[in-house]
């Protein structure tokens, strides 16, 4: 089953007046924890952080002592802080490389698993396991050690007579090891692809076969278009996740984004500014720009999606 569309549940018909009043009270009773959370934990803190992003608030003094600095934090971010642009580059590079590779791996393996054979469930489970262990510190530690000078990766290379190097401490390769970790966790999008593949009507393939279409043509003209909503869903989800990578970057760089800022993901930079340097005003500005950037990326993805996402229940492709 593919993910259900984000649509408001349909209300079927108007209920009689007394019952509706009854339901309104009950509705707000059941909604009250969520409403408290929405205002107290989400909305008001967000507005506060918008205000603080225009101040030099440092968390140690009270909020009323924070000085209004206007657009200074934003100006500093865009014009005077090389680490900022560096973190943007690192994050965008990571997302641009790791997300497509991860989706390719997920789709490829899903195609391999799409035919029934003995033990298919076991394979599916094993491939999903790395995703489940996902953002854990333990896994990041393993990865860090594996790509060290004495790590398993170099041992493997040595078998082929290649002399390795300490990958995680080399600014040229540190980010690549993080990408590899992300690709290795292809299991979650794979499961979603598998579900999508099950939805493709078998008749389409049969008809194409009768028309003499080979496996390649069937894949390009049937599988890909039929799967495009699921590809799109995975793309959006993984892109947003990719921008938020924190744990592995933190662990591999000992919380500093090194070597030479090569793994300074945006969220790690935000953490360093806010909780390392206690520069909460600046960190608030970083968070707001991040929010807007993710919003823009999502909108752009949805806009471009119109051109290649095919919904079988609508006109055209």
């Amino acid at each position: 089953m593919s993910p259900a569309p984000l649509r408001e549940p349909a209300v079927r018909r108007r209920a009689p007046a007394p019952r509706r009043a009854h339901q309104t009270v009950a509705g707000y009773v059941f909604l009250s924890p969520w409403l408290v959370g929405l205002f107290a934990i989400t909305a008001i803190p967000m507005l506060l952080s918008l205000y603080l992003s225009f101040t030099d608030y440092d968390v140690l003094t009270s909020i009323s002592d924070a000085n209004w600095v206007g657009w200074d934090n934003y100006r500093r971010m865009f014009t005077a802080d090389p680490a900022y642009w560096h973190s943007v580059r690192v994050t965008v590079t990571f997302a641009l490389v790791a997300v497509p590779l991860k989706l390719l791996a997920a789709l490829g393996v899903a195609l391999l698993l799409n035919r029934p054979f003995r033990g298919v469930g076991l394979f599916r489970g094993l491939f999903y396991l790395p995703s489940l262990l996902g953002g854990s510190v333990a896994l990041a530690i393993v990865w860090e050690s594996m790509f060290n000078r004495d790590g398993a990766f170099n041992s493997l290379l040595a078998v082929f007579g290649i002399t390795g190097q300490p990958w995680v401490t080399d600014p040229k390769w540190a980010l690549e090891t993080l990408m590899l970790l992300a690709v290795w966790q292809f299991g979650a999008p794979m499961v979603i692809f598998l579900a999508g593949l099950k939805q493709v009507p078998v008749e389409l393939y049969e008809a194409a076969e009768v028309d003499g279409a080979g496996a390649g043509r069937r894949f390009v003209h049937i599988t890909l278009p039929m799967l495009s909503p699921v590809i799109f869903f995975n793309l959006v989800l993984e892109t947003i996740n990719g921008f938020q990578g924190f744990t592995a970057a933190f662990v591999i760089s000992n919380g500093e984004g090194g070597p030479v800022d090569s793994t300074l993901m945006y969220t790690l930079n935000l953490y360093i500014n806010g909780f390392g340097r206690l520069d909460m005003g600046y960190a608030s500005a970083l968070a707001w720009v991040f929010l807007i950037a993710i919003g823009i990326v999502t909108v752009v993805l949805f806009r471009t999606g119109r051109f290649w996402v095919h919904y079988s229940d609508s006109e055209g492709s």
Partner: protein
Amino acid sequence: MRRRLRAAALLLIVAVVLYPLIWMVGTSVKSPEEVVSNIGLLPDTFTPGNFADGWNNFDVSFGRFFLNSIMVSGLTVLGNVVSCLFAAYALGRLRFRLRGMWFAIMIGTLLLPGHVLIIPQYILFRSLGWVGGDWPYLPLLVPQFLATEAFFVFLMIQFIRGIPRELDEAATIDGASPYRIFRHVILPLSRPALVTTAIFSFIWTWNDFFRQLVYLSDLKDYTVPVALTLFIDSTSESSVGPMFAMSLLSLVPVFLFFVAFQRMLVEGINTSGLKG
């Protein structure tokens, strides 16, 4: 021929996927010398002492860290299951003024990245005296009791929509209030969604690092992920074995959940698109 090719490809992928995990298990029982010199997956000399060494490596034993993590994860599960089901029942089933607006806002918060909220929430909790207070877990737990995990609200709404509305209508005709319908119709029939939420809620909280790193500052309050990073600060060759031993132990609860609920986990993510 093609079947053989497929089988070979799958076996190769299994090897790549499992290699890091097997290597982790092997390293956790290697002696300090072997960590450097032995390129094999498995050790020549089995060194189970790494587990005892890792357990007692810091002033506070890992047992304490595990208890802290179990408590945080357990209460998070409780909070999410209860508060998200309340919100889902209201938004997915009851008819009341402004429901459409609240539903749209809920979907909006679903897309809101957690990292954006961490700074303002930290400031809020700090001003309430909860950060570094008598019980430093309040900032981690209170939001979970207020249905702030929109993903679970959404998942349960999708599920509740599948429960036949005729059941509510029949109960209403019999004079049942929305509270009774919740208690006697929705709650018992929502069990699969609640179990899915509970499992994912536990695993994600167990693996979560960012929020625990931000809010926990006293060694005795550390959870397992935060405690694990203590090893990295002082990586010498002698601590690699113990570090791996504790990393491995930290994955055991997740692994047990995985073995027990494998089918549900896999189905859970493809019906709802849950991230892994």
